[in-house]
């Protein structure tokens, strides 16, 4: 399978009184359907890299291709559409909209892209709730759920549009071991069932080692790239 994500000579410099370069000539590709982790110490540039892959941030130099599209040539609306169709985000914090119920939150990416979700999409959302083990609370406001339930709802939301890529930034950072293990096993299931590409940023080596490929970043440079 080809690369769903391709980074070519990507550099990122934050301008200021003294310019800070956080990424140096990163060349990296991710195969469709692969399960990857990016590890590195805090401040190593791994979250910046993930934001650039997710088109939330733009590289100062270099090119990013997502699903064949050259993102550096796209405008804000074009990028928004690409993110909506192709990428699911899971962050350390769940970022659910507190004004909406769990199921409304999960359907939100679909509503952003299109109109009222058809029955098939609702069924998909229900299936995701089942997979996550939170079907019983799907009509709760997101504020009336436990931390683990909220994060699982956020994962269901990332998956509802059947994205090609899921980008997860420390997705279990706020969770206990039991919840963490459960979420990784869900990620694995989705990866196998739908061939969804996973890129998980973590500083926890134990979690990273469960991935098929580990990319390590140190001081903005790729220092290790192991595929098992």
């Amino acid at each position: 399978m080809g690369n769903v994500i391709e980074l070519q000579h990507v550099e990122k410099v934050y301008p200021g009184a003294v310019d800070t370069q956080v990424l140096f000539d990163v060349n990296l590709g991710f195969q469709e359907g692969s399960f990857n982790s990016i590890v590195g110490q805090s401040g190593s540039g791994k979250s910046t890299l993930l934001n650039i892959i997710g088109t939330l941030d733009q590289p100062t130099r270099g090119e990013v291709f997502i699903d064949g599209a050259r993102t550096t040539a796209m405008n804000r609306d074009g990028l928004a559409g690409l993110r909506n169709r192709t990428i699911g985000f899971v962050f350390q914090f769940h970022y659910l909209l507190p004004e909406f119920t769990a199921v409304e939150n999960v359907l939100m990416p679909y509503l952003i892209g299109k109109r009222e979700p058809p029955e098939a999409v609702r069924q998909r959302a229900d299936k995701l709730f089942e997979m996550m083990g939170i079907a019983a609370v799907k009509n709760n406001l997101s504020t009336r759920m436990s931390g683990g339930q909220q994060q699982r709802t956020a994962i269901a939301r990332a998956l509802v549009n059947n994205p090609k890529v899921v980008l997860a930034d420390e997705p279990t950072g706020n969770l206990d071991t039991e919840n963490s293990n459960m979420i990784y096993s869900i990620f694995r299931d989705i990866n196998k069932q739908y061939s969804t590409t996973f890129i998980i940023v973590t500083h926890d080596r134990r979690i990273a080692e469960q991935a098929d490929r580990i990319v390590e970043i140190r001081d903005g440079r790729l220092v290790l790239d192991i595929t098992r």
Partner: protein
Amino acid sequence: MLSLKIALRFLGSGRTQTLLIISGIAIAISIQIFVGLLIGSLQKDLVDSTIGNSPQITISSSEDVASIRGWESLVARIDELKITEAIAVSASGTAFVRDGTTSLPIILRGFRYENADRIYGFSESLYQGRPYQSGKEALVGRELNEELELGIGDRLTITLPSGESSTLTVAGFYDLGTASINRSWVIANLQSVQNIFELGDRVTSIEMTVPDVFTADTVAHTIEQAVGGDNIKIDNWKELNADLLSALDGQRTSSTIIQAVIILSVVIAIASVLAISVLQKSRQIGILKAMGIRDRAASSIFIFQGLILGLIGSLLGITLGLGLFYGFNTFTADPDGTALITPYFDRGFIFRSWLIAVAASTLAGLLPARKSLRLNPIEVIREG
């Protein structure tokens, strides 16, 4: 529509804040409606009492006081223009009536009753008796009759400056609301007055009302262009009442300023509340942007919030304003139930105010909407 749905949820989640701002808008708009209706009614009262029951355009002879020849064709041509509301011709002249040993000066005015009634409202002002019917009947004003102490059917002797006399029978008594008119006008049939003053078929004036009193000057100008000539002159009330007009203009300007300041305060209040809302909801907007909501859809959330606040606030405000106005008229009424002013519920003004309030509230959402455009999802995500 997703933006509208999110806007509604945002407003619903900050219920106290939403209720406070809606109350603020409602109070401001209610004052605007109250002040606007009050000043509008005052103006209408003033205009009605000054020119309401009188012609707004008058054509008279520019050559000699007593004659407009060929008035039928003049009236027909003015009628064809279809810019006047009512037209009446009049034959008038000065005379005297005798009260015991003294003579009282009067103006004897001849009209065709139906035509003049549409201008002067004789029927409504007749407080005793009936309209004149035969050629020898006349109506006498309240103040004049207080001096003459006549009764219905009494005879009234009119003496012309030339010394000749005519006798009319009193058919009724009127009160046109203006003492000087009530004291001086004796109103009779057009033909009788033409005969008394030996005018033949001529009249002394053609009098008109127009649908909008404030356009009397432009209507007069149009009539001038259509039928004007050297032998007639056309006056309109605006030319003759410059002082009243400037007073009305002043009143209208002050009313407009008050209303503009109120709308401005509504805009500032909504804009500031929504600007705070952008900060409060920056996390939600950030994640919506990360999930791919387009900038325009994200910013329209705040425009919709402005629209919703404006719609609800202004409708409440209008209801409250109408209530205030109604209450004002009820509580300031005289013991006999007569209102201080004649309430005039100007629907056009109310509708315009509502439209302006809603449009202004929606515009007030623009500033926070622009602010939301600059919101970068990374900043939100980084802050956690």
